[in-house]
């Protein structure tokens, strides 16, 4: 029997279903992440699980027992929550806020025993909040408040924790810390964690299971490794512009639609920054010759006009070199990212030579000298600056030529 299981759940507001047919099973200590665009119904599902919204149909059960058959107090011992809504209690210290998590365990007058106090301290310790303990809750920053709210949920000692976007408001360091804390809670304390996350790249690093939600339907459910694909993300988020690369965790903005003006000689990860800098300034580019497994490849494909790609670990076919040459010819400049010119990369040298012979300006980040003329730049920003300068010069000559012809 599954520890936590949701069957044919239908969720929504006032009898109007938003999402149907929600089914999932979790064992003790598993982490489930819900992923989907804003407003797709993640929160509605979570709120239904925590009984803040009445479920419309289906069932939620813990160890085979229907959740709604439990008394409200038993339920509190089974499930704790961290919500997105902000709480602003007056005159309460962080410790007092955390202590409210002990509610289901304290006596009639809510007296905290020494054991309760230890658990409260331990919970605050887990979120690194000891320095905040005696501070007024309202005076804390958003991130600190979030940590305290998580400590509050931890000290409720429930088997299941439901968190609605727990990483919002957190900086990158605490985002990592938090996910680490949750991972530990699942491993050490066998807690089952259900949460919504916006960080696609983090999900596969923490979740055992994931649900992809696309407006009003469960798009995919399974192990994140299996269901989180570039295509699925593109589909769910309706990404017509820009791109997302699962393997790399890369987000790229929509590419520039202008005709390419520059050819980038990339490879070995040296050109990623250049691609992005060009795209940022609205300069179109072609790039090559990249091997399929090169980390430059996915960015170039996302942002570049044309990318010439060769299979992994083989010599570059002469056909591809000719293709590259034809692209170079059409460009006004070439950027050399400083890629290796040895081994299977040696054709890159030919391309540089070709550009130089055709009188195309070469801007390079290369340290060593070659028998080819190039303008040496020492950083990506300086190379872009130089490029803009060269392009302007070129364009003004071009304009003059056109003008002369007219006369």
């Amino acid at each position, binding site marked *: 029997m599954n520890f936590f299981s949701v069957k044919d759940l239908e969720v929504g507001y006032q009898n109007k279903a938003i999402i149907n047919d929600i089914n999932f099973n979790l064992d003790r200590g598993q982490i489930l992440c819900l992923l989907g665009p804003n407003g797709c119904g993640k929160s509605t599902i979570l709120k239904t699980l925590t009984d803040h919204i009445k479920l419309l149909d289906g069932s939620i059960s813990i160890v085979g027992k229907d959740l709604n058959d439990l008394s409200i107090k038993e339920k509190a011992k089974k499930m704790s929550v961290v919500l997105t809504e902000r709480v602003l209690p007056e005159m*309460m210290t962080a410790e007092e806020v955390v202590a409210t998590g002990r509610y289901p365990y304290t006596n009639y007058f809510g007296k905290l025993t020494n054991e309760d106090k230890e658990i409260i301290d331990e919970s605050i310790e887990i979120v690194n909040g000891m320095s905040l303990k005696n501070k007024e809750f309202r005076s804390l920053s958003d991130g600190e408040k979030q940590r305290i709210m998580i400590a509050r949920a931890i000290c*409720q000692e429930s088997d299941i924790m439901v968190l609605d976007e727990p990483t919002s408001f957190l900086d990158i360091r605490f985002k990592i810390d938090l996910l680490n804390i949750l991972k530990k809670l699942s491993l050490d304390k066998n807690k089952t964690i259900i949460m919504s996350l916006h960080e696609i790249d983090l999900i596969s690093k923490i979740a055992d299971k994931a649900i992809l939600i696309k407006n009003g339907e469960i798009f995919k459910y399974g192990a994140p490794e299996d269901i989180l694909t570039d295509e699925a993300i593109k589909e769910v988020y309706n990404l017509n512009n820009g791109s997302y690369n699962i393997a790399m965790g890369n987000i790229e903005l929509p590419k520039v639609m202008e005709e390419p003006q520059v050819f980038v000689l990339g490879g070995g990860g040296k050109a990623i920054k250049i691609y992005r800098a060009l795209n940022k300034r609205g300069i179109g580019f072609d790039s090559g010759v990249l091997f399929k497994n090169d980390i430059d490849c996915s960015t170039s494909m996302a942002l570049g006009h044309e990318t010439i790609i060769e299979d992994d670990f083989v010599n570059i076919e002469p056909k591809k070199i000719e293709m590259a040459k034809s692209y170079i010819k059409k460009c006004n400049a070439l950027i050399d990212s400083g890629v290796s010119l040895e081994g299977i990369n040696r054709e890159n040298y030919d391309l540089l030579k070709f550009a130089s012979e055709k009188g195309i300006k070469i801007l390079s980040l290369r340290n060593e000298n070659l028998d080819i003329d190039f303008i040496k730049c020492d950083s990506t920003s300086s190379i872009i600056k130089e490029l803009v300068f060269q392009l302007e010069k070129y364009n003004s000559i071009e304009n003059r030529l056109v003008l002369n012809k007219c006369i």
Partner: protein
Amino acid sequence: MNKKVRFYIVLTILIIFLIFSIVINIVSGSVDFTIKDLIDITFNDRELSTLEYNILYKIRIPRIIAAMLFGGALAISGFLLQTFFKNPIVGPYVLGISSGAKLFVGIFILTNFNLRAVNSGEVSIFIASLVGSLIAMVFVLLVARNVEDISALVVVGIMFGYITSAGTNLMITFAEQEKIASLAIWSMGSFSGVTWNMVKLSTVIILPTLVLTFCISKPLEGYLLGESYAKSIGINIKAFRIILVFLSSIFSACVTAFAGPISFVGIAVPHLVRMIIKSSQPKLLIPCIFLLGSSFCLLSDYFSRTIFSPIELNISTVTSFIGAPIVIYLMINRRKRI
């Protein structure tokens, strides 16, 4: 400072302050009665003269007990409403709950409507007042469901107050002369008409309600983080809301029935206490709020009797003079305090 220690210090000071307020109310008035007399009577078995006996037992002592009970009740009622609405500037007077009670007591006084089942006039007045309070409360809750903004809610409360006043005025227009007078005196708000019967009934109503309020201090604390969290830690929200509304209505209804509508005690006192104790824990707040509410009303009553003696001011005049500036001050300083 440790919150517990702070609480006990504050509690002691409040008790001393209450005793002080009681004493000055006993000794002052149109007939002087010195502290020495008081000590002699309590400790040295001095016999009371008939005049002294009448003044003390028929006038001052019931009035003092009433002021204590009513002040405490109003303050706690305000505290409960503030917890309920998660807003510091609400109270039974501001939300129009006292006005609802006023309208119903008005109907009761002006018409010859009487409850057959209860023979006592006091109980009937209380029931009329409670019904009025609850109707007003239900109205406020219905509005609160539709307005997110708490200031809108307060405006609605004030408007509701105007409606009930209009209703009362309408009745006055068609009422008999002598009944108008008694309604007018009552609606000004005063402890002067309080009889022993009223005091007894109020004690029976207010003290158990106070005990009940103290008994829900645990859910009251859990409620501080808002309803969603309260629910997640095991509070039965629906039941708790009903209890909260009922308790606060009983408090304010009882006061309004016997002393008329009294303003600002419900807002000012819980605030002052929170500021002094520097805590939101209901366990600590409730006793202190009741004590300070009592002292607040005793002092206000003292001023209302003595400032323009022998003319007596109505109690709301004094509580407004003291309470309204406190509320304004609090609203301005809320941000700075943190």
